[in-house]
Structure formats: structure tokens, C-alpha cells
């Protein structure tokens, strides 16, 4: 076993060194699979050559575009990629969220239809979950799907759809039985974004950027063959997908290094900007301590992540504990932005134009944008409810 894994390592190392294009090394662009965006030549080349080996989704079965690697082999692959600084060839909601869910709940035909396309980076997916009236209470969603022949006809509105403008497909929770108790009348369907019944409108956020959209569904069509799981039993499918989402946000799972939450440093060494403030004699000792406290929490977060990640690699699936990482990781990311903004003093209030450096404005925008992290993907309050119920066993 040891010899075969070491052989795999040296083979992998050689192959990566020969085949990874220079444009795929170091920080930079990662392919999203979207057919509506253009990517640099090396980004595309890297995706294609990795997809040929099944290494965009290395642990998926070969029949679905993966490489059938074991956990240990996948770990070796990611370690060797990290060793040369190679970026992931592909990241999107297909590889990280829908794919694992389809592997578990999809029919053979659905797996064969969708997974190889995801694996090749041939489609970007978005998530049709939240609605104006169904945020934290997601199961209260009211977008309605009616089966007509071989198709579902869908009417309703989704909101906070990340990346909808560049997505090719949406996985979507819809109500298929309005009389059943709310968790029992929901179905999980897949639908193409390019159709007359789908309209997208970006939402401008307080930071000025628009990463989220409203998605209006007016007679949008999903094929009956794209119903995942049984009719009216989509809540279980949708919830499982959320665990994959949170484990991604929390950096769990046999994933590569990139899944660290925003701005998290590698060790107790301070991040560059924070280190500068700590070294600055103008910085007050109370502020210096605040930086240190943040770093300690961050380090403990990484260590807990590593421990649970090890447990996942030992065969446990990420469960309700993913909520712990979502909650803590979001607070950490947010607190870092607040701390940085505070340390910047008056330089940290610039919105645009003259008088502020690009770095300062960037930091301020990030601080504003960070208000969202404790809300999207399930608010911290909802995560705390999940932890209380599923981990601590507290009653309803």
C-alpha cells in the first residue's frame, strides 16, 4: 500500500511538473465551467488537461468524469499540486455541491447526463434556494412547480442566486404539494438557465458589487427526468447539499488548500497587513492584543478544521458539525475585516476617488462586503440553532 501510494506520488509529481502550464501557477484565475465567460488560454488548457485525467473531480468514478482515486491518492494529488503552487483547474457549485449530491441521490441516467459535463467544466451551476419570503425558513418556500406531461412548469421568484448571470444550469427547490406539511411538499429539480421563462436581475450590495441576483421563474421548464430524488421528497436532498456547501465554506472535506475561508493566514504568523500594524509603534497595545486574539482564534479554527478533516478522511461524512465551521469561519472572516478597518483609522473610511489608496479602498469595500458572510449560506443564528439541535441534542 505504502509503496503504491509513493509510486502514485512520484508519478503525479512528474506529470504535474511536465503538464501544468505556467499560467495556472500562483494566485490567479480559476475556471468556473461557465460557457458565458471567457478565460485565459492557460486556464482553459489546465482545465482540459486535468479533465482528461479525471482530476477535476479526482474521487468521482471514472464513468462520471472522475479518476476513481482513493482518499489517500486524492490527498497526494492536492499535496503535489500545492507543492508547485498549481491552482485548482475548476471550482463551481457543480463540482463541490451538486455533484456530490447527485452521486448520492441521482439516478444512473442523471449521473451520466450531468456529472461528466460538470467534470469537464462544461457548465456552471447556480443555486435556486432562497426566496423573498423564505430565507432562514427555507422550507417555507413558495415557488410552485406543476407537472404537465414530462415537464415541470415553474412559477415563482428566487433570490440571492450567486453567479446566476454566468450560470448555465440551476438546481432548484420547488413546491410540488401545497397541502402537505411544509417539509413534505418540496422537490429538487434541475433546469437550464437559457430559456424564456427565466429572467435574471443583479442585486447591488452595500459594498457596491453585485455577486448575487434575483431570478424570476415565469413558466420556466424543468424536465421530469431532472427531478432528483422522489417527488415531494426534495427537502432531504436539498439539506444534504447544504452540508456539502457548508463543509466547503468551512474548508472541510478531502479538498485542496484553496478552500480556506477568506483572509485566513496559514500559521500564527500574522497576515501582512496586520503584521504591519502590530509592528507600528503608533499601534496601541490594546489593538495589538486584539490582533493577537484574532490570530489565536484563527489558528484554533485551522486546527479544529484539520482534526475534523482527518475524521472525514477516516470515513465520517461531514454532518451537523459543518454548521460549527460555517458559524465560526464567517465570524472570523468578518472580524478580520472589522479589525483591519479599525486599525486603519481614518484611512479606512474611503469609498472612492482621490485621497485614498487603492489598497485602502479595497479594504473598506471588503469590510462592507463582509457583512454578508454571517448571513449567506444560513445566518449565524440559524447555524447556532442547527448546532443546538443536531450536535447538542437540545429540544425544539
Amino acid at each position, binding site marked *: 500500500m505504502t509503496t503504491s501510494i509513493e509510486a502514485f506520488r512520484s508519478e503525479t509529481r512528474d506529470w504535474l511538473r511536465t503538464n501544468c502550464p505556467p499560467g495556472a501557477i500562483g494566485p490567479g484565475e480559476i475556471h468556473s465551467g461557465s460557457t458565458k465567460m471567457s478565460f485565459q488560454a492557460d486556464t482553459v488548457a489546465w482545465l482540459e488537461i486535468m479533465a482528461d485525467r479525471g482530476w477535476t473531480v479526482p474521487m468521482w468514478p471514472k464513468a462520471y468524469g472522475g479518476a476513481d482515486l482513493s482518499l489517500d491518492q486524492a490527498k497526494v494529488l492536492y499535496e503535489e499540486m500545492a507543492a508547485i503552487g498549481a491552482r485548482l483547474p475548476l471550482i463551481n457549485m457543480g463540482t463541490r455541491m451538486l455533484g456530490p449530491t447527485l452521486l448520492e441521490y441521482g439516478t444512473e441516467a442523471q449521473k451520466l447526463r450531468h456529472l461528466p459535463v460538470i467534470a469537464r467544466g462544461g457548465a456552471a451551476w447556480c443555486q435556486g434556494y432562497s426566496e423573498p419570503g423564505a430565507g432562514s425558513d427555507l422550507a417555507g418556500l413558495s415557488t410552485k412547480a406543476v407537472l404537465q406531461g414530462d415537464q415541470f412548469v415553474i412559477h415563482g421568484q428566487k433570490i440571492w442566486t450567486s453567479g446566476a448571470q454566468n450560470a448555465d444550469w440551476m438546481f432548484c427547490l420547488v413546491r410540488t404539494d401545497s397541502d402537505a406539511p411544509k417539509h413534505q411538499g418540496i422537490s429538487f429539480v434541475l433546469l437550464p438557465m437559457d430559456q424564456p421563462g427565466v429572467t435574471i436581475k443583479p442585486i447591488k450590495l452595500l459594498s457596491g458589487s453585485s455577486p448575487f441576483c434575483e431570478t424570476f421563474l415565469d413558466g420556466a421548464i424543468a424536465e421530469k427526468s431532472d427531478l432528483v430524488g422522489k417527488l415531494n421528497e426534495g427537502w432531504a436532498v436539498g439539506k444534504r447539499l447544504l452540508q456539502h456547501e457548508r463543509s466547503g465554506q468551512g474548508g472541510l472535506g478531502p479538498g485542496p488548500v484553496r478552500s480556506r475561508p477568506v483572509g485566513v493566514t496559514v500559521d500564527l504568523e500574522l497576515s501582512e497587513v496586520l503584521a504591519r500594524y502590530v509592528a507600528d509603534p503608533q499601534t496601541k497595545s490594546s489593538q495589538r492584543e486584539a490582533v493577537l486574539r484574532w490570530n489565536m482564534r484563527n489558528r484554533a479554527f485551522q486546527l479544529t478544521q484539520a482534526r475534523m478533516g*482527518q475524521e472525514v478522511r477516516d470515513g465520517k461524512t461531514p454532518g451537523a458539525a459543518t454548521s460549527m465551521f460555517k*458559524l465560526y469561519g464567517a465570524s472570523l472572516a468578518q472580524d478580520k475585516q472589522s479589525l483591519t478597518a479599525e486599525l486603519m483609522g481614518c484611512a479606512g473610511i474611503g469609498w472612492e476617488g482621490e485621497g485614498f489608496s487603492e489598497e485602502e479602498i479595497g479594504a473598506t469595500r471588503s469590510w462592507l462586503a463582509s457583512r454578508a458572510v454571517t448571513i449567506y449560506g444560513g445566518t449565524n443564528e440559524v447555524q447556532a440553532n442547527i448546532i443546538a439541535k443536531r450536535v447538542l441534542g437540545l429540544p425544539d
Partner: protein
Amino acid sequence: MQTLYTDDQNQFRSVVSRFLEAHATTSQARELQETASGFDQAVWHQMSGELGLVGTHLPEAYGGFGFGMIELGIVLEEMGRRLYCGPFFSSAVLSGLAVAELADEANKIELLPKIASGEERVALVLDDLNQVEGIGHQLMISDQGLLSGTAPMVIDGLSAQRLLVIAGSATGLGLYQVDKGAQGLSITPRVSVDQTRKLAEVVFVDTATQFVGRVSPEALNRFWDLASVALSHEMIGGAERLLEDTIAYTKLRVQFGRPIGSVQAIKHRCADLLLTLEFAKAATQHVSFSLAAGEEEKHHPSMVKAMVSDCYRDIAIAAIQLRGGIGFTWENDTHLWFRRAKCSEVLLGTAGYHRERMIQSLGGQDAA
């Protein structure tokens, strides 16, 4: 370096746990805290003799079992869970580590087997339990080789059969030993809020000593690190037990016709406490895993003591709060852990002290 406990280590934990379950109950703790020595001889003999726990972490060459910080941490966590009362921390941990890290070879050969077997209970006399920088300023060896000075707080100073002392001298710090019957030595009990861990003031006036080893600043800091990590394990055990009991209580206690644990304000507080505990625990385990693997640990020991001090205190505060009125009675056991949490928080340095120590080692500057 290992990242999870091995099966053997888990099994070791259950052996320790079963023993303490039977021999370290809270009713025993309540009885023992009323006594002067604060411990049960019979339990100590069983623990050191039959189980051999006292020498867990001490080198095999000197009569120990040769395990490292991981196994020591396991023993201490289980002790912390049950508020074990006895000289394990003072003799096995503080004195054992001091001799193993600071004594010269001949003294290791003489002292460690006695400590490891539990045959002698040895207290370590430090003139400062708040900060490592304060050690060796009050207790001084004269040019004639006699020891004078006061250590205001010594753990198990009264019940110990022998004293080890770190003292300053014209030529630097050293580790010394003093017989309990030595001239010029006086020991007076000091009553702290936590009577499950006994303290005493120890005063020396021109007392004769025997030299045990030279103490470099690096070695002293390493000793302080190891002792802080060991104490942190004990604290994690206590914090974990308190949180489990508190959550169990919120599931049983009914108000307004429903268990209080179903109220969102309480759920969120419990979830927050769980996060605090899990992250502090991961940090504590990490540092022991890496110490056991022989890796140099520069910042983590202080990080761990700081996090765990805050964590144990916060959980102890919540444990009383979430029990409502019963939580602040003498009858209810919660305050026993609350008191232990407070004393452990300050012993070997508060959270604030350890954060400052990290800032120094990370190259931050003084605010001066």
C-alpha cells in the same frame, strides 16, 4: 505527527476514566477539601502503585512509563472532569517535569524514580505562580549556600514529603531540594477559593539545600510551557464536563411548560460555548501531539493556556447562569468547578499574561 488519538490512547483514557469514576467522586471532593492534606492516601497508592499513573510521562530510564504529553494530557483531562483531589499535579506534573527538564543526571537518577512511583510526594516551590519572569527574585541562595525568602503560594506545600525549589543566586537560577524537616523552613496553609487544590505559604530563613541542577532561561521557559499545557489539559476536562452537565440540565429543567433548552436564547449560548470548547480543545490537543513528536513549540503553549483559561471561566460562568437559582447554592456541585476554573485561570499565568507572552515572542513591541 499524529492528528487523532490512537486506539491505544483511547483505551488508556477509558482505564483512567473507570478508575477515577470510582475513586474521585464529587462527594469525595467535598470531604477532602475539608481536610488539611486534601487527598486520600489509599487512592494515591492505588493510582501510583497498581495503575502506575504517576509516572505516565516520566522517562522509562528513571522509573516512568515513558509516555509523553499526550498520555499525561489524557490523565489530566480525566482528573479535571472529576475534580480529582490529590498531589498528582504538584508532584507528578510540576515536580516531575522540573526534575526531568532541569535536574542534572545524578539527581534525575535519585529523584525521578521516587516521584514516578508515587513513593514520594514532592512539591515545587516557586516564588511566582503568575509569571515565569518573576521566578527566582524572592527566593535567593546566599554566598554561603543557604536559602532565604518567601513563596506565597505553593501547591500541596503542606502535605508534600519533600520540596524542590527554584531559586536565584549570584551565578543564576538553580533547582534545589530541601528536606521537610530542614532548619529555617516554615509552611503555613493558605486558603484559596478552590479547596480542592491545597495551597501553602513556604518561608525559608537560611535553610540548607541540596543542589539539583542549573536552570537556564530557555529551560525555565520550556518547563513553564510544559506545565501550562499540562494544566490546560486538566482545565479542558473540567470545562467539557461542566458543559455536558449544563446542557443535560437545560434538557430537564421545565419552565413555561417546556424544557429551557428549547428556548433559543439558551440554545445559542450553548452553541457558542460548544464552539469555544471545541476550538480550545483542538488547540490543546495539537500542542500535545506536536510536543510528543518532538517538535519545537514556540507560541502554542501560551496560546493554549490563554484560550483554555477564558474557555473554562466562560463555561463555568454559564454553568451557574443556566442553572438559575440552584446554580448559586452551596448544595449544588457547580460551584466546585467554578472555583477550580478561577484558580486554574490564574495559576501559571492568566490569559492576558499568556497573550502578552505571545506578542513578545511574535516580535511585537512594548507599548512603552
